[in-house]
């Protein structure tokens, strides 16, 4: 029984990573119908921006600030203006394909201009383990977990409690009406892209010490987060966190009790079942069917 508890804890820690990445998916989908296949690479890149800043001589804290600012410019502003805006009105698919190409481009660029090697990355959380009632937990995982929960709680509070949040929600749910009642829809959408950029930079900062800074680290992460976002309901921020945690736990339990060779299959089968019987996701709202 002790090992089951350990598995749950480890699964939650991994799940928190997926959740942190998945939140951005749902944000972009909600406000601008963007399926970002490059989300994993979005998490990979900020770590390299920070590493580059450190190579240039900046201390760690400054590198973090520079990394976050640069990702807001590149992954928020530039991504929206250069890629999303011109393509959005042509439907979901061409944009999704373009983000796939973007993912290839980002990986190759990092490999070519930085390195194909994995680089270690300093951790802002102490890297040692602590023992809680005889169960050893890594502080790093705990840090990710806490930040993921805080990020989602903060976002939910922003969206539900503040007038800015209400404007953002209005812009997301019905842009036409929102425009009529005076919501600056364009600015609200830009804001979500910037929030996503900050979130991925934050995720990058927390996850890279565990995953290592490597051009390809976004592949596994992106796919897991994507599945987490769907399971949780593609249109709900708190759904993403539930989906992420669930996928993390499910992955560990299936590796322990089903088959390590098929560990990746269990969450996917779960995903198919969820979509067929509860297509709005675990915590999602149902969307009107467009005819």
């Amino acid at each position, binding site marked *: 029984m002790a*090992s089951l508890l350990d598995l749950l804890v480890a699964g939650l820690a991994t799940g928190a990573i997926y959740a942190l990445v998945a939140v951005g998916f749902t944000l972009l989908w909600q406000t601008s119908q963007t399926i970002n296949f490059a989300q994993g690479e979005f998490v990979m890149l900020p770590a390299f921006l920070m590493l580059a800043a450190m190579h240039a001589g900046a201390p760690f804290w400054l590198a973090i600030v520079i990394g976050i600012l640069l990702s807001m410019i590149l992954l928020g502003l530039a991504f929206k203006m250069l890629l999303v805006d011109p393509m959005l009105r042509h439907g979901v698919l061409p944009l999704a394909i373009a983000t796939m190409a973007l993912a290839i481009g980002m990986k190759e660029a990092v*490999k070519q201009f930085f390195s*194909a090697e994995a680089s270690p990355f300093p951790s802002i959380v102490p890297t040692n383990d602590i023992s809680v009632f005889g169960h*050893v937990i890594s502080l790093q995982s705990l840090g990710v977990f806490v930040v993921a929960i805080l990020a989602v709680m903060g976002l939910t509070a922003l969206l539900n409690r503040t007038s800015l949040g209400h404007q953002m929600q209005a812009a997301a749910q019905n842009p036409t009406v929102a425009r009529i009642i005076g919501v600056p829809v364009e600015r609200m959408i830009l804001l979500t892209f910037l929030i996503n950029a900050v979130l991925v930079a934050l995720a990058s900062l927390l996850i890279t010490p*565990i995953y*290592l800074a490597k051009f390809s*680290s976004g592949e*596994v992460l992106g796919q897991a987060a994507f599945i987490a976002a769907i399971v949780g309901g593609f249109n709900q921020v708190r759904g993403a966190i539930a989906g992420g945690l669930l996928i*993390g736990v499910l992955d560990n339990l299936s590796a322990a009790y089903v088959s*390590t060779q098929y560990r990746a299959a269990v969450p996917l089968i779960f995903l198919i079942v969820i979509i067929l019987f509860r297509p709005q996701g675990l915590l999602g709202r149902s969307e009107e069917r467009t005819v």
Partner: protein
Amino acid sequence: MRPTILAGALFAIGSLSAAFAQSSGPIKLADVAELSGGGATVGTNWKNGIDLAVEEINAKGGILGRKIEVTHADSQSNPGVARAQVQKALDDEPYVLLGPGYSGSVKVTAPLAADAGITQIMGGEAAELTQMGDKFLFRTSFGQQSSMPKVAKYINDELKARSVAVVWVNNDFGRGGRDVIVKEFGRLGITVVADQSTEAGQSDFAADVSKIKAASPDAVFIYLNEEESARILKEIKRQGVTAPLIGETTLVGQKVIELAGGAANGARGHVGLTTDAPVDLIKQFRDKFVKKYNYVPDHNGIKGYLAVYMVKATTDKMGKVDPKAFADTLHGLTIKATEEPGMLMDVTFDEHGDIDRQGFLVEVVDGKQVVTQVLPKLH
């Protein structure tokens, strides 16, 4: 619009087919490696090793007075693409073909090189590659059929383990090593109490380690890539597994130690090629590599470097640039490091293209790789 694009396309491909004579001018080597996709780290190390060796040899006047020219092509870690690129390379009639590194890609390309009568020096380690009867295929490192028995023997003789857990990465590298060593364990009467596959790029090893812990083996054999090795070592320490940890090059390398920190202490393994070997020439190689590329290479970097020096040593031995006689000359050839320092260690190639060279048993002590035993060359 369409016809012109197409005609242009056809023309572009057709015009690439210029055949090249090998009688004068630079000696042409063609490298096909995993420069993108899942094997990009392997392929990039291999490529860098090749470039370093080519640069050195050319700086000293080349091979038999002729400069080397090497082309690199990316297989995208995909056998189909590897086949196309090797075909392209062979159409240009290179002196020797270098690569690929993935065993699957070697399997699909080796018949092409053999058909063309061109020698292929590759990085694959799967046992079967040199057992296909191919007369033109050579390794740059131990095949799994020669490294795994040494590991199994160590577990049996030194550790006296009767039960063992095997953890491997589910790709052709990991699966190949696992299959050879499990057979060895069977021969030695060692029971495999846990047989765990893991995914490339996996980050959470909690479930895997808890299964190992539950099986309470006398020893754990770990055969993963460097990054995953580091992660599982941390998890093993976290869950307090105390059985000895045995592996291969990818468990005890400097990279793993750097990534796993204290958790790597105590890990042991057999190492064929390592930049940490107590050999002066290897230390010099490492310094040169770090100076040029700014990072410490893994064994794939050494393999690429050796591949080019194998070309040089064989050609020097023949006294002429003769692609037809190359493979015959290299079979059974012994190259001494005193005569050709680029080979780093004495090495002999047998009639299958397998190598015989000294190996090392190492242990990680206080964050440093320490060689505990040198396994001598057999012949």
